[in-house]
C-alpha cells in the first residue's frame, strides 16, 4: 500500500483526496495545514489516517512515501525541498514554483535523492488530450509541429473567486510575481512546452489590465495576456489568456506540415483538420460532413466513457496521479518529463519579467525572477 500525505487543505486538496481514494493500492495516511481547522475538515470528510499542524510532524509521524503539495504557490518550493530532502516523492500543484530557478533546484534535488517529482498539469491528461498525444506520436501531423495556439481563458464572474481575490488586498495571489496569471496560465503554457525542444525559446509578452478591472479600481492585476513564443524560427506558438472572452475557452490547436488538430478542453473534444483539400465546391460540402461525423464520434466516445464510469470532471487529475504513482512503484518514467516542467517555468518567468519591465504604473512593485535579486523592484 502506497502511503500518501497531503500538505494544504484548501479547495484543490478536495480534488486530490477524491482522486486518491479511487486509486487502488494507496491510502492517505495524513494531511496537514497551517490552519488546524482546515486539516480537521478534510480529515472529517475523507478516509484519512491523521491530521497534523506541520509538515515535519506529518513526515515524521504518518511517514508518507508520496507527498501532495496543495498549498498556495509561495510555499511550494520550501515544502517540496523539505520533502525531497527526506526522500519522499512529491506531487506539486500548479504552478510548480514561483520562479524557474526554484524548479531547477527541486528537479536536481529529486534526481540526487533518487525520488520522483511531478506537477499538477492535469489538463494534459484528459481523455481528449491523451487521444491527441497518441495521434501526434503516431505521426498524424506529418512531422514536428509548425505552429501552436493555446487559449486558456478564465471566467472571473465566479463570485466566490472574484470576491476572495478582488476583495482581499492581502490575498496570497497578489504576492506572486505574475499575480492572477501565475496561478492560472501554467496549464496553457505547459501545452506549448510539451512540443518545444529548446531550453530558451524567444518569448514576447503583452499584458494589460482589462477595462472591467479598471472600472472597479483594480489597477494591479493584469488579466489580459497575449504571448508569442518562437523556437529558432522553426516552431512558433501563440498563447492567449483573457477574462473577457466569452465563452472562456480552453483550447489547444497544433498545426503540422500535413495535418492539424484542435483540442477543446471544455467539451473534451478532439477534431482532426486534414491538410488535403477537395476540388472545387466539394471543399465546401465534404469537410462539413466530416466535421459533423467527428463531432458525433466525440459524443459517442464521451458517452461511452460516461457509461463506463470513467468520465469524471477531474479525470485528468486522477490519471496523472495514477501515472505518477506507477512511476514511483515501478521505476518507469514520470508522466511529465522534467525538461517540460522546467521549460514551462522558464517561459512563465520570461512573461512576468517582460510584464514587469513594461508596466506603465510606476507605483507598483514587481518581483524579478533572478535568484540574486529576490527583493522588490519598482519600475
Amino acid at each position, binding site marked *: 500500500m502506497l502511503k500518501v500525505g497531503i500538505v494544504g487543505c484548501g*479547495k484543490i486538496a*478536495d480534488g486530490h483526496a477524491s482522486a486518491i481514494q479511487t486509486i487502488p493500492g494507496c491510502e492517505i495516511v495524513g494531511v496537514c495545514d497551517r*490552519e488546524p*481547522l482546515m486539516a480537521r475538515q478534510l480529515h472529517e470528510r475523507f478516509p484519512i489516517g491523521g491530521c497534523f499542524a506541520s509538515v515535519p510532524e506529518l513526515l515524521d509521524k504518518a511517514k508518507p512515501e508520496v507527498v501532495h503539495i496543495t498549498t498556495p504557490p509561495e510555499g511550494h518550493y520550501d515544502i517540496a525541498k523539505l520533502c525531497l530532502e527526506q526522500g519522499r516523492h512529491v506531487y506539486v500543484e500548479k504552478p510548480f514554483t514561483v520562479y524557474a530557478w526554484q524548479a531547477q533546484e527541486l528537479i536536481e534535488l529529486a534526481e540526487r535523492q533518487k525520488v520522483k517529482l511531478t506537477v499538477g498539469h492535469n489538463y494534459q491528461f484528459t481523455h481528449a488530450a491523451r487521444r491527441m498525444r497518441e495521434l501526434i506520436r503516431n505521426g498524424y501531423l506529418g512531422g514536428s509541429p509548425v505552429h501552436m495556439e493555446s487559449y486558456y481563458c478564465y471566467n472571473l464572474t465566479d*463570485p466566490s473567486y472574484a470576491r476572495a481575490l478582488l476583495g482581499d488586498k*492581502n490575498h496570497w495571489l497578489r504576492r506572486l510575481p505574475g499575480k492572477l496569471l501565475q496561478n492560472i496560465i501554467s496549464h496553457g503554457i505547459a501545452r506549448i512546452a510539451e512540443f518545444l525542444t529548446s531550453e530558451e525559446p524567444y518569448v514576447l509578452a503583452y499584458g494589460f489590465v482589462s477595462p472591467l478591472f479598471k472600472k472597479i479600481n483594480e489597477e494591479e492585476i493584469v488579466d489580459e495576456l497575449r504571448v508569442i513564443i518562437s523556437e529558432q524560427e522553426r516552431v512558433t506558438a501563440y498563447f492567449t489568456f483573457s477574462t473577457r472572452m466569452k465563452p472562456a475557452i480552453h483550447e489547444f490547436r497544433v498545426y503540422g506540415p500535413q495535418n492539424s488538430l484542435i483540442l477543446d478542453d471544455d467539451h473534451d473534444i478532439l477534431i482532426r483538420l486534414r491538410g488535403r483539400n477537395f476540388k472545387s465546391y466539394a471543399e465546401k460540402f465534404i469537410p462539413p460532413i466530416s466535421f459533423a461525423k467527428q463531432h458525433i464520434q466525440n459524443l459517442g466516445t464521451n458517452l461511452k466513457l460516461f457509461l463506463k*464510469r470513467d468520465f*469524471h470532471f477531474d479525470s485528468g487529475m486522477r490519471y496523472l496521479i495514477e501515472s505518477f504513482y506507477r512511476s514511483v512503484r515501478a521505476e518507469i518514467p514520470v508522466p511529465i518529463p522534467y525538461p517540460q516542467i522546467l521549460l514551462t517555468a522558464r517561459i512563465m518567468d520570461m512573461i512576468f519579467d517582460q510584464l514587469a519591465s513594461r508596466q506603465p504604473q510606476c507605483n507598483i512593485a514587481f518581483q524579478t525572477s533572478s535568484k540574486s535579486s529576490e527583493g522588490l523592484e519598482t519600475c
Partner: protein
Amino acid sequence: MSEPNDQFIVSPDVPILVTGSAGFIGSRVVQSLLGRGFRNLVCFTRPTSKLVRLETVLRNGPPDAHVQVLEGNLLSRQDCEHASRNVGLIYHLAAGTGEKSFPDAYMNSVVTTRNLLDASLKGSCLRRFVLVSSFSVYSNCENPSGSLLTETAPVEEHPYLRGEAYCFGKIGQEEMVSEYGKKFGIPYVVVRPGSVYGEEKSAIPGRVGIDTFGFFLHLGGSNTIPFTHVENCAEAIVLAGLVNGVDGEFFNVVDDDLPSSRKFLHDYKRNVKRFKSLYVPHAASYALCYLWEKYSEWSKGQLPPAFNRKRWYTYWKKTYYTNEKLKKKLGWVPKISTADGLQRFFHNAARGEEHA
C-alpha cells in the same frame, strides 16, 4: 421609535458588533437595533460588500447614533480583534453563503467564527454572542413525515454526506460556538431562520422546487414552506441578543400562517410570471434522490451527490414548523404578516421581471 427595554441585557450605549451588516438580513438587524434606541454600533463588512442597503439604513437612522462601518476580513485575527474590542454584544451573521466548495464554506464560516470568538475572549465585556445559523442544519431524517420540527430536532450528524457545503459550514459554526461556550463560558444564543424572503429577493426557494434541468420541477407539493420575512427575522435576531435569560438557547424563526408550496407557486405564477412546472410527487422525488445518490456512489462521484436522501429529508419531506418558543421566550411578534409580506414580495419580483 421604540424605547430601550429594562429587561434587556445591555443598555443603549453599549457597543454592539454586527458582522455581515451589509447583507440582506444584516442591514435589517442594524435598522432594528437603531430603531430600538441602540446608538453605538460597529458594522463589519467585507471590502467587496455592496453597501447600498446599509447606507440607506444609516441615512434614515437617528442622527445622534454613533455607527462605525468597519471594512475587514474575519479571516484576519487582527481585523477580528479590532472589530470586537470593547463590544458588549456580537451579532454574527457573516458566513460563506454561495460557496459550492466545502473547504471554502468551512473557511468562510467556521474559521472566521473561531477567529471572532478568540478575539472576543480578549475583552471582558462581552455579554452575549448571537450566531445566525440556518434551518438547513436539521437532519429531519428521524422525524415522521408530517410532524412538527422544533428546536430539539437533531442536527445533521454527517453534513458532508448531504453534498451541501453551506450546511457543512453552518453546522461547523454551531459546533464552534457551543465549544467556546462550554470551554470559555462565552454566553451565546443560536438563531436558525427558515426561508428568509423579502422585497429584494425574487428567487423561488429550493424547498418549492428547482429549475436545474431547464424546466421547473415542483417538489414541495402540499408542504408548508418555512418562510420568514426579512424584517421579522431581523427582529427575532435582535431580540435573541437582548432578552435576558436565554443564554444557550436555540430559536427557529418562521412566520405565522405559512403557505403551502403549491399555494406559493400558484400565487407566484399569477403575480410574477407564467411558466410551466412539473409536479413531482413526494414518493417520486424521494426515489429520484435515492437513485441519484446510489449512482453517485457507484460511479465514484462521476455525478456529484447533489441530490440525495439527506437533502430530501431536509427540504422536501412533509414537515410543519412552529415559532412558539420564539414568541414565548423572546416576546417576538411578527411585524409583517405573511399575506402582506408575500404580496410585497410578488409585487417587487414582478417589477424586476418587467425590468428584465
